[in-house]
C-alpha cells in the first residue's frame, strides 16, 4: 500500500464539452424554477404582496392624487413598490433558499457532484429575476389599468429594465444572508431586515412624508439608492446624482459578495454546509 500511486488503473471520464457545460446552467435554472413554482407557500406571498400593498396604499386612496409636479401617487408608487417587490424576490429566493438547502444538507449533495457551483447560484438568480419581472408586470398592469398611469413607451421599458436589474445587488445580499442564517432563522432574519429597510428607504411611502430622521438615514440604505434609480426614470427622484446611486449599489454588491465568499470558506471547515 505504500507503493507510489499509479494512475493507470482507471480511465478518467472524458472532459465536459462547452455546450454540455452551458446546458447544465439551463437545466439547473429550469429545475429551480419548477421547484419554486410548486411551493405555493413561497411563490404566492412573494408575488402577491407587493401588488397588494400597491393596491392598498397606491390605488385605494385615489391614485390620481399628486405627490409632486405632474406626478401621481399611482405612478410614483408603481416604481417604489416595483423596487420593493424585486428586492423581496431576490432576498427570499436567494437568502432563504440558500440557507435552507445549506442547512438541510442538500447543497452538500450537489457540491459532491461535478456541477459548477456557479450554476447553482445562477439558477437561483434567474428564478429571482423571473419572479421580479412577474411582480413588475403585475404592478404595471395594475397601474395602467386602475391607476391611470400614463408613460411614454420608452419610459415603461427603461423603468422595467431598471427595476429588474435591481435584482442583482439584492441577490448578492441574499447570498450573504443565506450563508449567515440557519435553515430555521432565515425567514425571520430576512423579514427583520427587508421590511424595515424598505420602509426607511421610502419604498412604501414617499420619504418626504416621513419624519426628518428617516431622510437623514435613507442615503445610508441600499434600497434607497435602488428606489431613487427607479424614480429617476419617471422624473420623480429626489435629485441625487445617477453615479452616486449606481456607485452605492455597486459597493453594496461587492461587500455582500465578499461577505458571502468569506462565509462560504468558513463553511467548508464545518460539519454541515
Amino acid at each position, binding site marked *: 500500500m505504500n507503493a507510489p500511486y499509479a494512475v493507470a*488503473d482507471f480511465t478518467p*471520464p472524458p472532459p*465536459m464539452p462547452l455546450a454540455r457545460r452551458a446546458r447544465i446552467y439551463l437545466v439547473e435554472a429550469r429545475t429551480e424554477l*419548477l*421547484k419554486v413554482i410548486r411551493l405555493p407557500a413561497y411563490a404566492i406571498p412573494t408575488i402577491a404582496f407587493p401588488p397588494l400593498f400597491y393596491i392598498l396604499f397606491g390605488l385605494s386612496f385615489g391614485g390620481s392624487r399628486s405627490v409632486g409636479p405632474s406626478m401621481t401617487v399611482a405612478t410614483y408608487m408603481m416604481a417604489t413598490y416595483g423596487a420593493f417587490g424585486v428586492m423581496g424576490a431576490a432576498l427570499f429566493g436567494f437568502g432563504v433558499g440558500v440557507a435552507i438547502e445549506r442547512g438541510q444538507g442538500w447543497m*452538500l449533495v450537489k457540491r*459532491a457532484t461535478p456541477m459548477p457551483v456557479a450554476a447553482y447560484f445562477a439558477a437561483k438568480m434567474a428564478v429571482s429575476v423571473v419572479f421580479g419581472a412577474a411582480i413588475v408586470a403585475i404592478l404595471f398592469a395594475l397601474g395602467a389599468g386602475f391607476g391611470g398611469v400614463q408613460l411614454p413607451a420608452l419610459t415603461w421599458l427603461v423603468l422595467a429594465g431598471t427595476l429588474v436589474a435591481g435584482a442583482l445587488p439584492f441577490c448578492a445580499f441574499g447570498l450573504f444572508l443565506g450563508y449567515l442564517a440557519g435553515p430555521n432563522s432565515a425567514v425571520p432574519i430576512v423579514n427583520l431586515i427587508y421590511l424595515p429597510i424598505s420602509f426607511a428607504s421610502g419604498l412604501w411611502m414617499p420619504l418626504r412624508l416621513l419624519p426628518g430622521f428617516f431622510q437623514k438615514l435613507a442615503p445610508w440604505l441600499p434600497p434607497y439608492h435602488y428606489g431613487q434609480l427607479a424614480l429617476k426614470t419617471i422624473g420623480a427622484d429626489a435629485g441625487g446624482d445617477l453615479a452616486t446611486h449606481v456607485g452605492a449599489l455597486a459597493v453594496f454588491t461587492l461587500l455582500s459578495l465578499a461577505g458571502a465568499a468569506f462565509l462560504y470558506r468558513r463553511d*467548508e*471547515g464545518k*460539519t454541515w454546509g
Partner: protein
Amino acid sequence: MTGLPRPAAPQELAGDSISASAAGIFPLARLRQAHKRYGKIHALRGVDLAIRRGELVALLGPNGAGKTTAVKLLLGLARPTAGEVRVLGGDPRDAAVRRGVGAMLQVAKVPETLTVREHLEAFRSYYPRPMPFGRLVAIAGLEGLEKRKYGELSGGQQRRTLLALALSGDPELLLLDEPTVGLDVEARRALWREIRQLVSAGRSVLLTTHYLEEADALADRVVVLVEGRVVVDDTPAAIKSRFAGRRVRCSTRLERAELLALPGAASVTLEAGRAEIVCADAEPLVAALLVRDPALSHLEVGSAALDDAFLALTRDEAHTTPTAAPGGSR
C-alpha cells in the same frame, strides 16, 4: 496496514478476498494518515484507508467515530487538517475527479416538489457520459415512479432515488454514507441487492454503516473506525473468527467490575444476578469465574452474536488507547 498491534496480522486473511476482486494493487481512492479537526473535536486521528478496483469496503463504527468525515474528505467536501487524500489519481476537489465519483450522503431534506425524473435529469446533466435514464431507473428500482414527486415517495423509495442520483454519472467509485439507516428490514435488504449488483458490475464502493450485519452481508473488507482511528482492517470472515467469541451466562454474586476483570472478558451485562459475559475464549474465563464465585449456578456457554463481536472489538480499543478520549489531547 493499520499499524496497530493486533494478535493476527491483517494480511493473513485479507489476501484472499482482495486477490479475488482486485485487478490492480493501486487503490482508486486513498486516505493516508488523514487527520481532521473541527475546532476542538479531533474527528480523524491518522486514518489510512484504501479502496481498490471492484472492491466493496465497509467503514464500520459507532456514531461519532468519524465515518462521515472520512467520506467528506474523499469527496473533497472538507480539507484534511493533515495527511493526504487521493481519489482517481487526483484531488477530489477537481471537477474531473468528481465526474468519476458518485456519492450518497445523509441529507435531512431533499427538494420535495421535484419529480424523480426532474431530479435525475438535473444530476445527469452534470456528467459527460451519464448513465442512460432508463438504465438508471431500472438499476435503482424506480420503474413507474418517474413522475412521482420526491415528497410523495416512501422512505425506501426516497433512499433509492438518492442512490440513483449517486449513480447518474455512471461513476467508477461510489461512496455511500449510511445508505440504509432508518430503513425497515425489507427496504434495507432491497437496497443491499442493488448495491451487490453494482459491485458485481465492476464498481468500487465505500459504504459506511454502524451495523456489523450490513458490513458482513456486503463487504469484501471491513475497516472498523473507533474514535477517529482505524482499529481493524480485515475481511468480515477474519473479523468474525478473531472476535466472534463465546458468550458465558451464569447466576453469580460477583459485581460487574469483578466480572469485567476476568481474563478475556470483553463485555458484561448484569441484571439481577444474571450475568452475560462476552469473551474470546471461554475456558480460561470460566476457570477464573469458578474460582472467584464457587457458588455460581446456571452456567451456560454459547457463541456470541456478530454484534457482540463488534462490541468486544470497540470496547477493547477504548481500553488499549486511553488517549482516544473525545475532546482531543492538544
